[in-house]
């Protein structure tokens, strides 16, 4: 029962489970908000496991109810991991502590190599870490992640089980909770467009690709693409005419460009930027391209001295 509790408390989204004891401070895999998270010292990553050949895209956080070739994934929540040396070792859990095994228990093992079933050599893996291990036997295992970042060494351990470990009804119940959880994640993880204090929308049809106007509190932008009609998959430039609220041209502002398709969770296909000031208040933007028809947002963050404003230009292609 205790190990069951330890599992449940990690699925922290369900409110009734919030009464569970606080999560252990060191290592382990825990659910925080809507992610399964591993803490490697102060470095954090979204942790997940898959058994593609058996359960396809099904994501596991802690215990893997099926046996087979398992993909371990850590998606970094901390940039430090992108440059860290990361090493993953999987050992048989012979600590006798089950899901409560901690780093000290592993350090106490007489021969780590003897219980090691898999050891991926340390690599630097920018963006995301992945490793592969085929489990031949059901049972209790411990994953040991070591990260070497900025000369410091961090370790996390995560006990987990593979296959049917004879805990009766719990896997099914947990499976159900995991499914609910996945469902919940699915619906909550869709990124929403960031809220902004000053959001101004200018909508225009693609055929009339003349000039887009967007008015803010401090700044006003008239944006004109270099191609007419404004079509997808064509690299082009924009001209931005920046004026203050009185209509006077603004020179020397820093204009940062971002954007994307809010409905698709992705940004622009390129990284456009201001490449020159053609005359007072007229800025040239190069490297602009759209690659899908539909609703786009172009986010201009304009800063001049201490004042800063974010203007959003909406367009439909």
């Amino acid at each position, binding site marked *: 029962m205790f190990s069951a509790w330890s599992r449940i408390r990690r699925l922290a989204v369900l409110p009734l489970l919030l009464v569970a004891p606080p999560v252990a401070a060191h290592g382990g895999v825990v659910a925080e908000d809507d992610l399964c998270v591993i803490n490697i010292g102060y470095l954090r990553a979204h942790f*997940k496991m898959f058994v593609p050949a058996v359960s396809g*895209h099904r994501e596991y956080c802690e215990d893997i109810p099926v046996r087979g070739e398992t993909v371990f994934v850590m*998606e970094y929540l901390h940039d430090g991991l992108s440059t860290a040396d990361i090493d993953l070792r999987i050992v048989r859990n012979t600590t006798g502590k089950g899901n409560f095994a901690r780093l000290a228990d592993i350090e106490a093992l007489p021969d780590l190599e003897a219980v090691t079933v898999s050891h991926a050599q340390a690599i630097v893996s920018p963006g995301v870490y992945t490793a592969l291990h085929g489990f031949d036997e059901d049972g209790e295992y411990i994953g040991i992640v070591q990260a070497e970042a900025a000369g410091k060494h961090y370790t996390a351990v995560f006990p987990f089980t593979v296959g049917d470990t004879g805990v009766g009804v719990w896997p099914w119940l947990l499976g159900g909770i995991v499914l609910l959880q996945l469902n919940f994640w699915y619906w909550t993880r869709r990124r929403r467009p960031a809220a902004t204090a000053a959001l101004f929308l200018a909508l225009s049809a693609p055929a009339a690709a003349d000039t887009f106007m967007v008015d803010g509190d401090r700044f006003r932008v008239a944006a004109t693409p270099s191609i007419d009609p404004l079509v997808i998959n064509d690299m082009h430039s924009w001209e931005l005419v920046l004026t203050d609220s009185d209509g006077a041209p603004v020179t020397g502002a820093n204009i940062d460009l971002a954007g994307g398709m809010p409905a698709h*969770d992705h940004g622009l*296909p390129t990284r456009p930027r201001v490449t020159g000031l053609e005359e007072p208040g007229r800025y040239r933007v190069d490297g602009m391209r759209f690659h899908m028809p539909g609703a786009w947002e172009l986010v201009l963050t304009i800063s001049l001295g201490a004042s800063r404003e974010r203007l959003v230009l909406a367009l439909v292609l």
Partner: protein
Amino acid sequence: MPPRRTALLLIAGALLVAGLWLLSHRYSAAPIAWSADERRLMASLSIRNLPPLPPDPSNAVADDPAAAALGQALFFDPRPSANGMISCATCHQPIRRFTDGLPRAIALGRAARNTPSIVGTAYSTWYYWDGRRDSQWSQALSPLEDPKEHGSDRQLLFALIRDDDAYRAAYEKLFGPLPAKPDVVDIDRVFTNVGKAIAAYERRLLPGPSRFDDYVTHVTSGGDPAQQSWLSESELRGLRLFLGQARCTECHNGPLFTNHEFHNTGLLPPTGELPDRGRFDGLDAVRRDPFNCLGAFSDDPARRCDELEFVREGIELIGATRTPSLRNLGNTMPYQSKGQFATLAEVLRHYNEAPPSLIGHNEAKPLGLSARELADLEAFLHALDAPIAADAALLAAPRGYGSKPATDSPGGR
């Protein structure tokens, strides 16, 4: 029969009839009335709206017929390989639209990904599934030296050009005399010129008009949508889904049915492999490629490299692969970057479900299409099959080149 039961039966019968009528209406009535938006979108997909071949300023011989002839000979020549049996055409087989019918390419060894078609790639901004090259000519170089593909190297290529009379004559006419005592840069120069000649050939391989294109021409030139014989009713229903509900044109757009961009679509890795990091690593590779647009071997004196200079980066690219064209899917199975799916039906089922990705996030959203609708979509995709719009002479080893006949099969000798 009590009146109440009769009334219930009548209502049930009426509902059944109405339901059947709705079903039959939905499934059998030909969608012949296209909206203005649909017509516009259809026209944008027509091969007849394919712009002229974009110039490749990085390749001075891109449009030189003599370079194309040399490139074609090299393309089909198995000599630039470690065992003398692997040519470009070993994997890029003309009969299969320049693919090989394998999940992952097999030459000297097994390559990491599925062999993409070459047809229409002159319009691409990036090459390979992960975009690790940025020109058609720099793409042509890597397989020659890849130990799993040709397993040759640039010194051997130099020797081949030098020692084969026909190659040497053609090369020197195009690029000037071969250096007698080549240094490293000379060797690289000849190597890149070989790539440029191959690209000059590949540029000429373009898709031809399909039944879909003929239908679009008919509809957009004012023909009666009902009076046509190009597309079946199922294909027309598939087309309607393609343009709308199935959201295909979000990525598969333009006359080549691709936006030439990179997207994560939640594909599973094959057994024994880690998830494909895709564009995330490909971007790193193209930036480091000495033969990229900004490199010393580009023929463009202006070095205008907007694509490289303004390229998108970030964790969005994890697990993203290049959108392939949808023209000629009938002959290019299996599909996806690792050949994960043997049939189009499996591909469509995958997009209908849009499962979560192992790494990064799947940009596609579940579509909720019925089995019938998926079958219609599949039918429509086959309406895009068409012969290559190139002279038949371009689809085989040319005559008059090479000191021994080229073969397009590793098992040929």
